[in-house]
């Protein structure tokens, strides 16, 4: 039994790793910003938009205007087309069929031409065109007199761009929707791009792939630095390899367990929650250090009251924060509660049986000078009041996402070159299908440089325009004159046989036009020019699709509820502090006020986002553990050492996020680092050793 318990940490880890590998947990870790946004109408509408706006394009640019450049662009295009998921740009087949079927209603009539129509002359011109054509002339038998405006059958998609070169567009298979498929496609295109430095490629899919790769690279760097710090701490200072291995395995088990449970609760977990979760798991090392340094493991004691209070306070704080409706904070808090509690169980109930003996006289605790706790309290309060005046809240949630300026520039360049100006999508609503289609028509009529598939669906007014003209008469005249000009008899017998009623379609049949149902309403989107964007947003049936605008109100509400939850958390922390330290309550209070004050100074330099605020609360809930340990009656030099080691390990977990290039993680890292430094300063300035221990 004793032998088995020595390997229990490793057995738990192996079982959880096996379960994790076999379950679908990994597939439910998302890099999409949607996974961290607050639930509600706006998030659902964004998801609906992603579904209906599913044309995935691949833009290809060749940066040269040499005479061979167009040919080179075509060679690149041909290579890209060798991939089964890349296709030539084609119209939606169902929409094309619809347009063919309702030809006269879906094309715009040239009323000026119709009013001065000379059928004989038009047919003679057509005859000459047919005979003069080198090989073939395609007659549009539906409109041989060219009364309706239409597109040619074969259209060139190569654009010559001044001072740049040539660009073209291909289409990506709509069926590809997994990250693995995105990555394969990305690798394939990048390989072709590497062949020639003049090639530029862009697809919106690249955002997902590059974000994921950036997050992966970042995570690897952070984990490397964290493990490096821990290895130094354990091997060079503590000189205990067995303890290092057991701790790493325990942390690994807690992370895996928390991942499995959190994915089970939320269904989808943001990658940010995972990275944060991994970081927060290292706080649990505190529990091990205090038990270890105070000989709890040596004496096989399982319950350390201070460690229990510390754990209960931190877990309790995260539990309160988990009521925040902001998805990311909710996920992070749940993850932390599960991971910390699971680590605590292992550190408290398995480690006493592993035979760890605490080191002696390893670290000399430096004494700088003693500052009266009341001075520190006063200074902290000054900092806090100062920060309240300089505090600004960043309401743009997009700032938390991965910023990819290079792709954003390419995105803007290609879309502007192809569309003529910068375009942006807006959502439109209608209480009925008819109202939605009418709203689409209204917007495009008012802003002609806008585009929506909805204008391809005719309205009553389109039918009324056609009814003003006698197309039966045009058909009769056409068929009587055509043989005189030289056309075969009955060549145009079906021309201008226009519909007498509007086509009736239901929602299912019109889905292809980019229509979705949301609650009791129908929604679609319109691509509008950026210069008209603000004006268009004033229309009552239009809604912005900008993440910043959609979630500004949500973020404000979240901020308000976070303030309330922070209040509850601090009350809870104060209660726990009083319960555990009683006599030294005010001295221990500095472990809340001082880090808060120092972090508050940051507000002078940066705008605080939701994660800065969340992390402030986290730091306070971690800091209070030290307040409990350092103000207990049994405090001694071993406690101080344990606190220093804990702070180092907390920096290894949290502080290293300061090295992240992702704003969400950097925000956590900067607050964590400043907070840890503040606690360290407090440890040096505020003499905590009680007389007995001295």
């Amino acid at each position, binding site marked *: 039994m004793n032998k088995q318990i020595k390997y229990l940490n490793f057995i738990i880890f192996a079982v959880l790793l096996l379960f994790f590998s076999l379950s679908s947990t990994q597939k439910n870790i998302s890099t999409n910003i949607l996974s961290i946004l607050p639930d509600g109408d706006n998030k659902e509408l964004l998801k609906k938009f992603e579904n209906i706006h599913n044309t995935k394009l691949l833009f290809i640019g060749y940066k040269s205007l040499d*005479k061979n450049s167009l040919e080179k662009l075509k060679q690149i295009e041909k290579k890209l087309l060798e991939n089964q998921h890349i296709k*030539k740009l084609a119209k939606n087949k169902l929409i094309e069929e619809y347009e063919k079927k309702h030809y006269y209603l879906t094309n715009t009539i040239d009323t000026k031409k119709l009013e001065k129509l000379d059928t004989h002359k038009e047919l003679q011109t057509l*005859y000459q065109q047919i*005979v003069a054509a080198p*090989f*073939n002339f*395609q007659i549009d038998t539906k409109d041989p007199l060219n009364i309706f405006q239409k597109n040619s059958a*074969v259209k060139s998609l190569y654009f010559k761009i001044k001072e740049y070169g040539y660009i073209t567009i291909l289409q990506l298979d709509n069926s590809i929707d997994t990250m693995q498929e995105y990555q394969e496609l990305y690798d394939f295109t990048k390989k072709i791009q590497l062949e020639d430095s003049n090639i530029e490629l862009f697809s919106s899919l690249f955002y997902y792939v590059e974000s994921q790769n950036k997050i992966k690279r970042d995570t690897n760097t952070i984990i490397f630095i964290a493990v490096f710090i821990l290895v130094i701490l354990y091997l060079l200072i503590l000189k205990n390899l067995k303890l290092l291995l057991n701790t790493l395995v325990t942390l690994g088990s807690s992370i895996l367990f928390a991942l499995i449970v959190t994915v089970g609760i939320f269904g989808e977990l943001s990658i940010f929650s995972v990275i944060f979760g991994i970081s927060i798991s290292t706080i649990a090392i505190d529990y091990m250090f205090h038990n270890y340094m105070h000989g709890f493991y040596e004496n096989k004691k399982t319950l350390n009251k201070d460690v229990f209070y510390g754990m209960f306070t931190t877990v309790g704080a995260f539990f309160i924060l988990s009521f925040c409706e902001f998805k990311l904070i909710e996920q992070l808090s749940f993850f932390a509660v599960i991971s910390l509690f699971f680590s605590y169980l292992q550190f408290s109930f398995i480690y006493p049986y592993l035979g760890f003996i605490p080191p002696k006289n390893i670290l000399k605790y430096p004494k700088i000078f003693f500052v009266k706790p009341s001075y520190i309290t006063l200074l902290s309060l000054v900092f806090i009041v100062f920060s309240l005046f300089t505090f600004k809240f960043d309401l743009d949630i997009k700032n938390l996402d991965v910023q990819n300026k290079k792709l954003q520039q390419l995105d803007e360049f290609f879309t502007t070159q192809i569309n003529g100006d910068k375009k942006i999508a807006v959502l439109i609503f209608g209480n009925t299908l008819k109202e939605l289609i009418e709203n689409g028509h209204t917007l495009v009529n008012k802003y002609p440089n806008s585009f929506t598939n909805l204008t391809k669906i005719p309205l009553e007014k389109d039918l009324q325009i056609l009814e003003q003209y006698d197309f039966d008469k045009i058909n009769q005249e056409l068929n009587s004159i055509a043989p005189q000009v030289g056309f075969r008899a009955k*060549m145009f017998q079906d021309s201008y046989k226009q519909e007498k009623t509007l086509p009736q379609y239901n929602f299912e049949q019109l889905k292809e036009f980019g229509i979705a149902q949301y609650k009791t309403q129908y929604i679609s989107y319109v691509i509008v020019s950026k210069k008209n964007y603000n004006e268009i947003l004033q229309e009552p049936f239009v809604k912005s699709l900008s993440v910043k605008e959609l979630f500004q109100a949500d973020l404000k509400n979240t901020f308000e509820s976070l303030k309330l939850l922070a209040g509850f958390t601090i009350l809870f922390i104060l209660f726990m502090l009083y319960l555990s330290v009683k006599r030294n309550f005010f001295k221990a209070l500095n472990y809340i006020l001082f880090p808060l004050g120092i972090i508050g100074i940051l507000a002078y330099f940066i705008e605080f986002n939701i994660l800065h605020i969340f992390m402030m609360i986290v730091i306070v809930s971690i800091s209070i553990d030290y307040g409990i340990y350092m103000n207990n009656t049994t405090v001694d030099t071993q406690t101080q050492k344990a606190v220093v080691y804990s702070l180092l390990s907390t920096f290894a977990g949290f502080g290293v996020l300061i090295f992240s290039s992702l704003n969400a993680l950097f925000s956590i890292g900067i607050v964590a680092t400043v907070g840890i430094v503040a606690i360290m300063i407090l440890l040096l300035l505020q003499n905590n050793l009680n007389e007995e221990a001295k």
Partner: protein
Amino acid sequence: MVKLLLIGILLLQFSYAKDITFSEKRYIYAIDNEFSKNGKLFMEPQRVVLEYPQTHKKVIYTKDFIQISDEEKTESFTHEENHQYKLFFTLVIAIYNNDLEQLQENFEIKKNKEEVTLLPKEQIVSVIKKISFEKTKERLKYLTIYFQNQDRITIEQTN
């Protein structure tokens, strides 16, 4: 496109020009009439020249441009601007060089004894139904293009 590069390379491979004379019959369904004319093709190393002596029409095809001239005027086009001639010359060069691989991008190729049938893919299918030709002993017996609008063109080598 690689195709045009290949055309260029193949054109360069010719060390001498070869002249081909042919008759062309074009049936136009809309006017139920057939037109005949004779033409010449000059397969030169850097270019291909198509001439219709009766109408004084001349078309020059190079890897960079297509030039069309008659008694009155001369016009130049890029390959993209003149799909019909681009397709015609691609076809002629591929058949002349017995290099049907060039056509695989746009056509499905089927062989039945001596006759080769090309079935168009993607966009071309909206214009061309099929193309058939037979070539024996380096001589084009016939080349017929069947269009979707029931027109057809038949070209026969006469020399």
